[in-house]
């Protein structure tokens, strides 16, 4: 008899997109160094393997598009909650085409597709944090207020709060859900400040999981049928300190901790592409 808005629901699907060879030109790339695209692609394969085999998700793999270097970052293309998918309108104009493939894929999943038709609106999926109870939208260089409004109009059941995000980052660059009511947050000043805002704006209480590295706070929590709580996070070798923290404080019963080793490059540069897309599809959308 679960209601509609029960936290995250169950994760059933994941949408990923292959890394194009042009990925090195990724607009979203943060770290300065050379990017070994082929290594990233290998890591991506591993990642997909984890999603499919270890987690048992149904993975939709979209082909890479060489003209869209960032297309693998599917988390920006859409926001899915319940049975509704809001197709984002990325702040970087060059990335807007990425949403097309995503839109089609989501449509096939029978989601209600909502497009952002307002030309003035921009929204990167990575700026959207869904806590299971409400949304927070980072107002950043990539996401504007209008985009946030459309998100709010799309998901009317939930409060949608604006969180200013600076430094050219996006909200999920340093923040994500690590469990029900548990927010993983980086320790940078900026990240902490945003957390404060999140806490102030919310009617709900969230515990926080502070990790030394901002990037390590970008993880994926899933509630998998049959597997319980799963946290997909960065490889330990990448952020050893952060890994320690999260592993030690899994008070939320994050059982299997698939830590896809060797995703270094991918993680560093991608920040978990699958982000938003692992649908929060409620296995039983309606109480039965």
């Amino acid at each position, binding site marked *: *008899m679960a*209601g*509609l*808005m029960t936290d995250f629901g169950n994760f059933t699907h994941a949408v990923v997109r292959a890394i194009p060879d042009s990925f090195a030109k990724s607009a979203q790339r943060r770290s300065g160094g050379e990017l070994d695209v082929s290594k990233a692609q290998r890591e991506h394969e591993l990642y997909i393997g984890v999603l499919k085999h270890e987690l048992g998700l149904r993975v939709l793999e979209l082909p890479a598009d060489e003209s869209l270097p960032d297309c693998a970052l599917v988390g920006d293309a859409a926001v899915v909650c*319940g*049975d*509704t998918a809001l197709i984002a309108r990325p702040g970087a104009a060059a990335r807007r085409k990425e949403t097309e493939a995503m839109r089609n894929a989501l449509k096939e999943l029978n989601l*209600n597709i909502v497009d952002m038709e307002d030309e003035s609106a921009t929204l990167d999926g990575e700026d959207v944090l869904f806590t299971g*109870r*409400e949304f927070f*939208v980072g*107002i950043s260089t990539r996401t504007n*207020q209008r985009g*946030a*409004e459309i998100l*709010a*109009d799309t*998901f*009317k*059941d*939930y*409060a*949608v*709060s*604006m*969180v*200013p995000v*600076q430094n050219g980052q996006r909200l999920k660059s340093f923040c994500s859900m690590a469990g029900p009511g548990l927010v993983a947050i980086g320790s940078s000043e900026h990240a902490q*400040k945003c957390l*404060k*805002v999140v806490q*102030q*704006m*919310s*009617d709900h*209480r969230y515990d926080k999981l502070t990790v030394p590295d901002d990037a390590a706070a970008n993880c994926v929590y899933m509630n998998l049928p049959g597997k319980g709580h799963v946290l997909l996070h960065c490889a330990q070798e990448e952020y050893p300190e952060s890994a320690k923290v999260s592993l030690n404080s899994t008070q939320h019963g994050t059982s299997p901790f698939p830590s896809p080793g060797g995703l270094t490059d991918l993680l560093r540069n991608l920040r978990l592409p699958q982000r938003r897309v692992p649908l929060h599809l409620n296995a039983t*959308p*309606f*109480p*039965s």
Partner: protein
Amino acid sequence: MTTEVGSETEVKKEPEKAEEQSPAPEQDAQAPAAEPKAEAELPCGETAPPGGDGDAQPKAASPEKERKQKEPSAGKGISRFLPPWLKRQKSQSQAEPREAEKENQEKVDEQQQPGQESAPKSPVSEAKEAPGEELKSDDKDDKHSIGSADTQPAKEEKGDESLERSADVKEKEESKCEEKKEEGETPKPDSGTEKPLLKAAKKMKTVMCHVTLLDGSQFPCEVEKRAKGHFLFFKVCEHLNLLEKDYFGLSYKDAADQKCWLDPAKEIKRQIRNSPWQFAFNVKFYPPDPSQLTEDITRYLLCLQLRQDIASGRLPCSFVTHSLLGSYTLQAELGDYDPSEHRLEYLSDFQFAPTQTKEMEEKVVELHKNHRGMTPAQADAQFLENAKKLSMYGVDLHHAKDSEGVDIMLGVCANGLLVYKDRLRINRFAWPKILKISYKRSNFYIKIRPGETEQFESSVGFKLPNHRSAKRLWKVCVEHHTFFRLVTPEQPPKARFLTLGSKFRYSGRTQAQTRQASSLIDRPAPYFERTSSKRVSRSLDGAPVVSVSDQALRGDSSVAGDKENGREPALELSSDSKSKLRVQGENIYVRHSNLMLEDLDKTQEDVLKHQASISELKRSFMESTPEPRPDQWDKRLTASPATSLRLQAQGSLEEEITSILFSKAGFCSGPARPFVSRARAAEGTVTAASLPVAMGSVEKTPPTTDGPLPDSKDIGKSAEDKQRSGTGEQAEVEIEETVVIKEVKKAPKTKDVAPEVVVGAAVAEEAKKEKEGEAEEKEDKRPGGGEASSSSDSHSESEEEAEYHPQVSSVSVDQIKEEPEEEEPKQEAPPPGADPIASAAPPRAREERGAASEGAADEEAHNGHTETRQGLVSVEEDEEEEEEEEEEEEPRLNGDVSRTETERLPQVICCSEPPVVKTEMVTISDTFAAQKTEISTKEVPIVHTETKTITYEAAQLDGAGDSEPGVLMTAQTITSESLCTTTTTHITKTLKGGLSETRIEKRIVITGDSDIDHDQALAQAIKEAKEQHPDMSVTRVVVHKETELAEEGED
């Protein structure tokens, strides 16, 4: 006939008054100070663009005020002699007379028309009586209603409705007449005498009320005309068989079509005024966890309310949620899905959403099928479990503008106050974070507890469409806070604090109490029919359905339904009312007025003592060295956005502070000789050439204080505080706020709020003889040596502003700690008076602006605007004073004023304040902005004021400045909408070589909008002063002008 003029005004204002329990008379008396402030205050104003309404209101108001002014004299006089605890009573008594009159008239009428009055006749009589007054009638009625304080139960013959109505009308008419009289004469009959008459007189009539219930049906109920809200409410609950009634309330629509909550504690008639006796039964407090309700019937009613909310769009839902909730509705009302009976059409009569599609209906049916076996009660419970999670569940939205004039919505809910811009939440203030809630005019303020990382409290101001909406919002906040956060309702304010402003308090049961009470409910679950479904089915069956009910419940246009119900769908403004009816003191501490009263009540000794301490303080200030000044000022200047140049440049005087010194005999040379004009506050530059002497004097001048601040709310408090501070009693300051002040000062960018301060300090000159007596106008003379007595009374209209300190309450009342959003202890040790300050601060700017000083007595009304008077404590008045005080207090140190002083004299606090404008805190309407621009915030501008001080001195100066302890003889503030005048009289006697000199120093603060003719006001003031003290000469006139540079828009 002031009436004519006033009618319009009254209309606007009166309604609120009526709502407020506080009787008009009392308010009036105290009001004066308040109003001006209100305008002055607009801290928001600065921030917020002037509302459309704002303009209209002020103007309208002024006439009324004038009228009020007249009354006050009487009221004031009486009140003076009454101990504070009698105050309220007194007000009632004042009110009663009116009633009495009314009653009398009624009698007369009745006599004339023996038996039942025929409907037709009354109208006629009316016409005759008040030809051409038709328009006014409403207003008057309102007023009248205000006047009546207590309900006098009486047996009535029951007439049919029409009769009643006609009677009503008639009464109104009568009331009009009375009103006229009152207005004209301001009769203040003694309550005592009239009472008997009243009782004898009453034949109460009954009125038929129509209450729209949640299922859309109408419940007719006959009540006495004078019945209070709770009577009707209980009737309705009884009809509904509802025990857990504390979550509910009755609403009505006011003339402006706004939904208002019927205050159970007040007479219905006075609340609804001319609106039809049409009410709606609604959920007032949405229980966060409906599963904790004890009875199914309560949950059912809540479901009905939510269905309305959803259908009207007030409670937004996604498609899926609409469908799901709709399916539970079907299950609850129709039972299991029956394919044979339930076709798609069966739900076409239901409204599941504001706009309902076929697709949705299909979904609903599909879901409905899944609920098989669920009982209606279970379905309701499920409905609620889902509905309660909706983000807008239980959120009472109010339209407002933020400090920048951006349209936002303020949502009051169980957890606090939410701020939305469009659909986005941009900020949230949990109750524990809120230190104070207040409103002044159409501005609504909350003072926020500093966060862990924040240094100071901040105040946030919002601009509401009009005064009434601000008040409504305030009430809703007070009620929600009390209901959800407290274990028991807050106790009424202590008697000692008179209240300015609304006396409203929620006095019903809190959620905790109602839960406890309902846990004791021991009755078999009452049977009730889920009528809405029935209606539906009936309609299907072809049975007639009342259109009204249909609409109400689900008519597609829920809105329409709502209207019928008398409520307003979109925004609900709820005002107070609720369970028990008692209106208790408000949060607003009108200390001002109290002080005044207190002083009066005090024995001379006390007064003297008090004054002595004040004078001591002053002396100490005087002694302190002035040097730092320049630096300080410089700092300030730099910090403040407004440069001195600018300041000087701008022209309008907003405030002038004038001190007139009279010296008797000895030095009588022509009055003002030397002129010194200086811009003190801001730049310290001398504007005019100054004579050395003058200068010296200026510096010496003991800071006379005057805080020209007319803030309404604060005034009262501030006055008090000030007094206290002066006295050294700082005790009362509220703890919470204390911090603020300091912080403000610390804040690097503090705006220079400071500029304002200026005190025109006039040094008194020595008069050789003691001629004290004449000097003071009304005041008693205080022979003794120079203690100043300060009396302050501020009258403010309750309506104008009110404050509520959620935290405070917590202290005395237990708060429910549910959220760990603890109140952060951060408050630093609260410096003694701080808190008020913060709030006070904002107002300053404005206050200053408009002040015009009148020389003299209370009575003079400046331009005619003046209406209210307030007594100010000698030292300062409102918030502004903080700074001013500072300055004043440490006159020499002028420059530093701000920071140091504060610390030193923490007490200075001004009490009630709204917010902050000036203080520096910026208004943060959304976290976003806040975070982004912290810096800017501080800079936020408020009104910049320009200050000039001009001193005219008679030649001789004595070193007089020495400061003898002056006696503050009188302090008065006359406030009108656009103008506020404060007069403070200091009398100093000195014995020098056998000569006794009496120096009388008057400080007149004129605050007003630009339209004031300052020169004229000043001239008038001087003239009056001279007239009052014919045997004294004016030795010096110090004019201090403060001009608001910035936005005129506010006015």
